[in-house]
């Protein structure tokens, strides 16, 4: 199998022109992912990129990898089935805050506790972009939108805290306002053996709030590494995660220093134990034969 000796970010881009609004944060996420993949060096055809529905979920179509732009909120179940069936693949999952924490929110804890080797990137713009500006589960309380003309009455979801509580071994947050930081954490997330979650505060320039734009991010963001945060300490991580919605902390909140084996690993173990001396498929009915 002949591959370009070393791959560039460009090798991971498709020739489909993104339909995102000029300035959309998702351009940066796409760029960061392609850079991380180039650094990792697996060829595009060994990568599967699964998403749901939303502006953000269009992202697989803009990469050269295999992709599945599935249905709203179901990227994680599809990705888990794919990874179990083809453990050799590098499987990325991406989508929006609504896709992941509203309609898809029921799948997240189970993907986390099964702990297969997946990287889940949420492009969290705190709004519904594709459907033109309704409340998202991460929208701040009081926000005025087309579905909350008098202000939202609900306190928002905290993606970082939720996923930590679910027991995720790797949790990070980034923003396209810091491309090197974002690229680095995505690469590390992909390399991490187990379920890795990256919440990217990817601004929606069309429906997003003024204080959630790249320019502002640049000024307000604070790197965890500058706050001598210990990514190996889960309780510290939980406390830092509580700041979602007030502060914009970026970097790795938690990285389990002693991660448990992935689902794929224990499944392979079980298969190896049981495959020895199993009846071939065409003799499977023997189990029902009476003598």
């Amino acid at each position: 199998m002949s591959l370009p000796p070393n791959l560039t970010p460009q090798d991971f881009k498709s020739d489909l022109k993104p339909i995102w609004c000029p300035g959309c944060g998702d351009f940066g996420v796409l760029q960061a992912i392609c850079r991380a993949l180039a650094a990792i060096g697996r060829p595009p055809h060994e990568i599967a990129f699964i998403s749901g529905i939303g502006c953000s979920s269009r992202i697989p179509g803009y990469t050269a990898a295999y992709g599945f732009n599935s249905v709203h909120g179901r990227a994680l179940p599809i990705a888990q089935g794919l990874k179990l069936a083809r453990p050799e693949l590098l499987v990325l999952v991406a989508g929006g805050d609504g896709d992941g924490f509203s309609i898809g929110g029921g799948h997240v804890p189970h993907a986390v506790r099964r702990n297969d080797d997946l990287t889940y990137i949420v492009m969290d713009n705190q709004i519904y972009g594709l459907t033109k500006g309704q409340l998202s589960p991460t929208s701040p309380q009081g926000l005025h939108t087309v579905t909350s003309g008098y202000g939202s009455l609900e306190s928002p979801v905290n993606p970082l805290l939720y996923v930590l509580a679910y027991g995720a071994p790797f949790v990070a947050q980034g923003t396209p306002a810091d491309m090197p930081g974002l690229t680095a954490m995505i690469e590390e997330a992909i390399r991490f053996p187990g379920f890795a979650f990256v919440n990217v505060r990817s601004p929606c320039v069309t429906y997003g709030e003024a204080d959630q734009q790249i320019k502002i991010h640049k000024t307000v963001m604070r790197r965890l590494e500058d706050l001598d945060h210990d990514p190996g300490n889960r309780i510290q991580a939980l406390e830092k995660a509580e700041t979602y919605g007030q502060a914009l902390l970026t970097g790795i909140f938690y990285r389990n220093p002693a991660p448990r084996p992935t689902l794929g690993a224990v499944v392979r173990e079980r298969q190896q134990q049981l495959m020895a001396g199993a009846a071939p498929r065409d003799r499977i009915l023997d189990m029902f034969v009476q003598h």
Partner: protein
Amino acid sequence: MVEDLVIGMAGSGGDGIVSAGESLISACAAMGYHAMMTKSFGSQIRGGESSCRVRMATGAVRNPGGTLDVAVALNWEDFLKFGAELPVGDDTLVLYEAKTGVAPDALPLDGVTPAEAVAVPIADMARTATGSDKGKSSVVLGLLAGWCGIGRDAILAGIRKKFAKKDERLVEANEKAFALGVQYAEAHPLATPRTIEPAVAGEPRMLTDGNDICAAAAIFAGCDFFSGYPITPSTEVMQLFTREIWKYGGAVLQAEDEIAGIGAALGASFGGKKAMTATSGPGMSLKTEIMGLASIAELPLVVVDVQRGGPSTGMPTKPEQSDVFQAIFSAHGDVVRPVLAPTCVSDTFEVTVEAFNIAEQFQTPVVVLSDQEIAQRKEVIEVIDTARFQVVERQRPDAAELARYERFRLTANGVSPVSHPGMQGGNYVGAGIEHDEHGDPTANGRVHQRMNEKRLHKLDPLRERDDLLRIEGDPSAPLALVSWGSTAGVCREALDLATAQGLRVKLLVPYLLYPVNERVYRGFFATVQAGLVVEQSYLGQLYRVLRMMVDVPAGLESFCRSGANPFRPAEIVRELQLRAGKESR
């Protein structure tokens, strides 16, 4: 001597009446009888009333039968709770616990006087043998062995096998209880003998139920991945996978819900592996959206729906055939989804293998519409020779095609070779969004029209698969039956009975419910003046689907009712006779 014996037994949860039935049917298998066993329980999870029917015969057994030949009541309260499920008639032999204190001529069976009623001190014999009433079921087996002439060694073997797991003393005690039952039977010959013809013990037989054989068939067909969520009466399909699939390098996922269940299975199929999910009505409702995704993404997927009483939660432990509309039509947009239905445990194997083959050949989701009766009844069947079955794989792009790959290329037959992650050059992005040949999103009306055409007409060859419908009986008969699923087994017996009574009848049993093979139906209808489409759903759903696609003769009426009201061969014959009258006039 009879060739066919229908035995029904009921007692309270602790009486082990169902395990007696299981010993009996495995004895049947060992002796070479054909047999079928259905169970029924009260709504309690544990305790409460429980019952089973065992039908055994020297010839084929195609349904659980009608009125009981032998009824066994360990107590009357529980027995009567099963009403129509354990019907006693004028020819029935009733064996019952003497302790109930009921006189043989005063049984609590309103209107019916059975041929013979015998009060037996079952509990006393059990106590003598085992020191407890735990032995009742073995006593009952002894009585049946004695009075019906069912091979004692075979039954004893079953009893030994069952209790050996526990301890040796139990084995002896139950052997003793069995012996007492046999002696009692010998000491009290029946006025109306019930001895069954000995079976020609020869070929080994298989003993299984519809759910287990469905899962086994899937594995035979090359299924590597199962994902689903528990739901009665389908859960045993997943349970077999959790025991077996690892042995073949496959995997199973108990998902958090039915949506994740079908989602994960679809993911595995996107990965190039054969995948399946199984559920019942409520789960089918939840899988609707992703079934539509599978259709537009053109990915093979087998979805098993073990029907139960609906709507909604309905009656989870009762059979019904009311998911036809759901299986065929529950999708937004223009979708055609193949739907297959087995009629018994044995052909559940063929149908499941066929479902995988169709899914692979046409890159489509396929529904297998089983039902609670087939899925959970145990049958003794002939051994299935798997060598007779061919296994189909999806068409994959060759090197030439990969050089300039278009996932959804408009081919002559509408089927486009499909790649999967890992295949170099096959890279594409699947989507539920309408797309062009390359797979890129589009909102163009012309492309949409062409892609619908591709997705729908690629299935045309299925409409020509005459082998997926079976016509039985006199091909030129003016009287007709159309039936499917578990009800087809009843109609097959009705066909024989009616023919024996001189009626000119034929029966059409579709295994492929949809798309509709219009030619076969037209041919079948050509001679029909009157008849019935028999199905267990209030709305007579298959009848309506046929009307949609074919002109159904006016004389062919829908004969249907809600689930848990099983059809009996005799009543179908009656209905045919009424119409025979009309039709000859």
